[in-house]
């Protein structure tokens, strides 16, 4: 039973809270945050300086060496054209993350715009944007993505836009809630009472305080965007095989699952690990922020 009492039997009202306690309970044990940070560091190296990590040129074709299982020479094996899967996974980091990051950026930017205007723009705008959002929600992600792709043709760019668009209403809703909560908070009220103007309150209180949770949200979103984009690749609508992009590698390797499991397992692990790492980091961020609230 144990932990229950401690949680619920938390200290009575007036005790000072030591920093780091309270809402920021350690749901993610620290080691995981450390691992996540290390992994994200690894990813960053792979993005900025892939050559440092690659063991072979990622695009070097060697048909004679096709479909070799993982070995000391090829850590993740070789693919159908004899390319080194490990090096391709490293080389694929940048494009994959780029899709994830850009899609999240698009989703967040739109979400900020919609959510921001809804929360701060008065009742009529809030109502209108609420309807717009409802309509966007009624288009499930892939539906929206399909429409975008039909409009602009398939490919990594459209896939990015599509994923970004389909995540926007969710962000808009969360951001609106966040902003409304802050706008109605005691400290914004206190600032009004002191006689601070709208612009100052927005700049000094509302936006900075909304920023951290939104940043955490973005971290969480990147992993999901990578997963979404890979699904579009599978449907033949996103990045396509020649590109060393994880989703594309995954969907290309799927064909050979019976012969060469390593073609799908390693890029798949990368996607999962990236999502895990960014989520853990996002959580840590939220938790630390929560602790201050």
């Amino acid at each position, binding site marked *: *039973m*144990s*932990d*229950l*009492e*401690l949680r619920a*039997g938390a*200290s*009575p*009202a*007036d*005790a*000072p*809270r*030591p*920093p780091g306690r309270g809402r920021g309970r350690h749901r993610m044990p620290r080691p995981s945050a450390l691992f996540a940070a290390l992994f994200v560091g690894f990813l960053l190296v792979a993005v900025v300086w892939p050559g440092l990590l690659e063991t072979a040129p990622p695009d070097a074709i060697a048909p004679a060496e096709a479909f070799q299982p993982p070995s000391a020479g090829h850590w993740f094996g070789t693919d159908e054209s004899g390319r080194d899967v490990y090096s391709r996974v490293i080389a694929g980091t940048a494009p994959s993350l780029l899709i994830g990051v850009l899609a999240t950026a698009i989703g967040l930017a739109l979400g900020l715009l919609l959510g921001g205007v809804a929360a701060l723009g008065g009742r009529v705008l809030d109502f209108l944007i609420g309807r717009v959002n409802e309509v966007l929600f009624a288009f499930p992600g892939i539906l929206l993505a399909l429409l975008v792709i039909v409009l602009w043709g398939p490919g990594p760019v459209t896939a990015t836009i599509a994923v970004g668009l389909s995540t926007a209403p969710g962000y808009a809703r969360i951001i609106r809630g966040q902003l409304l909560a802050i706008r109605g*908070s*005691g*400290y914004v*009220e*206190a*600032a*009004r*009472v*002191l*006689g*601070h*103007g709208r612009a100052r309150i927005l700049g*000094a*209180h509302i936006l*900075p*305080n909304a920023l951290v949770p939104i940043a955490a949200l973005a971290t969480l979103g990147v992993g999901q965007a990578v997963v979404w984009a890979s699904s579009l690749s599978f449907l033949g609508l996103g990045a396509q095989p020649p590109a060393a992009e994880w989703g594309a590698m995954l969907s290309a390797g799927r064909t050979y699952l019976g012969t060469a499991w390593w073609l799908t397992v390693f890029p798949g692990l990368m996607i999962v690990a990236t999502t895990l790492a960014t989520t853990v980091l996002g959580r840590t961020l939220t938790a630390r922020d929560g*602790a*201050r*609230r």
Partner: protein
Amino acid sequence: MSEVEPSGAGPSGSTDAAALSVRGLRVAFGGTEVVRGIDLDLAPGRIVAVVGESGSGKSVTARALLGLAGRGALVEAERFELDGEDVSDAGERRWRRLRGAKVGLVLQDALASLDPLRPIGREIGDALRLHLGLRPAAARRRVLELLERLELPHPTLTIDRRSGELSGGMRQRALIAAAVVLDPPVLVADEPTTALDVGVQATVLQLLREAADRGTAVLLISHDLAVVSGIADEVLVLADGAVVERGPTATVLGAPRHPATRALLAAVPTEVPRGAPLLAEARLGDPSAGHAPTTGPRGGATASAVDSAPILEASGLRRVYRSRGAELAAVDDVSLALHPGRTLGLVGESGSGKTTLARLLLALERPDAGVVRLDGGPWSESTEAARRPARRRIGAIWQDPYGSFDPRWGVARLLRDALTVGGQTSDRLAVQKLLELVRLPSAIAASHPLELSGGQRQRVAIARALAARPEILIADEPVSALDVTVQAAILDLLDELQREQGLALLFISHDLGVVRHMSDELAVMRHGRVLEQGPAEQVFASPQHAYTTALIRDSPRLAVGGDARATASTR
């Protein structure tokens, strides 16, 4: 601290009749001992109160009595008998059998302490299901019987309601019902009245008394001696994890020996006259002298202030909220005036419209009718742009100071921000002066509000409000979330500052004792209307409205030297 123990009032050697008997109870968390050897005996039919400031270990003691001290808690006792059974080394399984059946627990706020998603019938019936294995239908019958016994109106309807759908009093009864449904020999009530409206408070105390009268041994945990004085048979004063004083209520409260007891007593503002500091006197060591009216600079100012022009004046204020098509007048035709150097106390239960009124006065909301005028000029009818420069003239403090601080800012930055508004230099010196003003060490400037105690936070809030050099201060329940001793200190501070700076103060509280202590004039509010308004003492002496009479009657008051039980059963 040594225990001061009046002869004959200590734990009796015989524990045969005791429902609960504990010797040398110690609770430690990770090497830190928070309860350090407490002896306690609870006898059937008697109410024992444990009082102390927060951090004194009283809550942990209460929880330990149910085996709920928590994970990581090391609980030791030389003797620990519950209803004649040795439970000193009871494991979790055994405790589960005991909780609810042998010992019940009543927590503070029923809204939070009852699951908002479950009908109260199920909550109350849980113990029947768990301990007697009753089927739902049988349990329901038993619960209905209990609800009738506790005089809940319409038991058959109420039983299916959830706590949020009930009135405060009913939900509090339900909470107690859930603890006593199996008539456990011991009932532990942990701060059962804190932050409740007086009417509800009275109900809770009465129910506890009734439980005791049926033969239950009741342990009442509280920081409020006024509450305790009216109901407890015996009082234990806890400080720093140990009992420092114990004895019959009348003895302990009538002739306190330990400074901690005296401090607690002094902090009770009820019937301490306006202008008399609560704490400074208590520390002098003479409790009887503590409450002598002081004739300060106030004496003369009082008369003249009445004649002075009001600095903030509201007339005919009305604010209506529309919800689900229904209209609710949160503030209805309220007129009042604040004068420099004087305090208007506003008292009313939760939901009476006090806070809405405060927001109207602060021009955070627009009235549907009526006007607020500042210094004779327009205020509520002005535009926000026109109001902004004058806003610094009205300061405000709230019940939750922490929520009014930007979580990203430290103390220094909070104060500097406010200093700028007041058009003053916002250097380190100014910040230090402000902190001095509210009796805080200057080192606090470097901290984050998160690291401060509740009392310190409220002082920082006051400092911030004063930084802008306001002429008016609106304090909305500024002390309700605080312990009595901390509350007393804040009240003293506000009083002093008002005197020094000639502030017009609107003091809002649900606690009649506090308001009475603080106010020159008093307004009683209910359902959005001001029922009665006038000089504080006059309102108390001869209330014109039945509601005011009831409020005064239900307010707990120190019954020093009187018959505790008689006071409690005045209802």
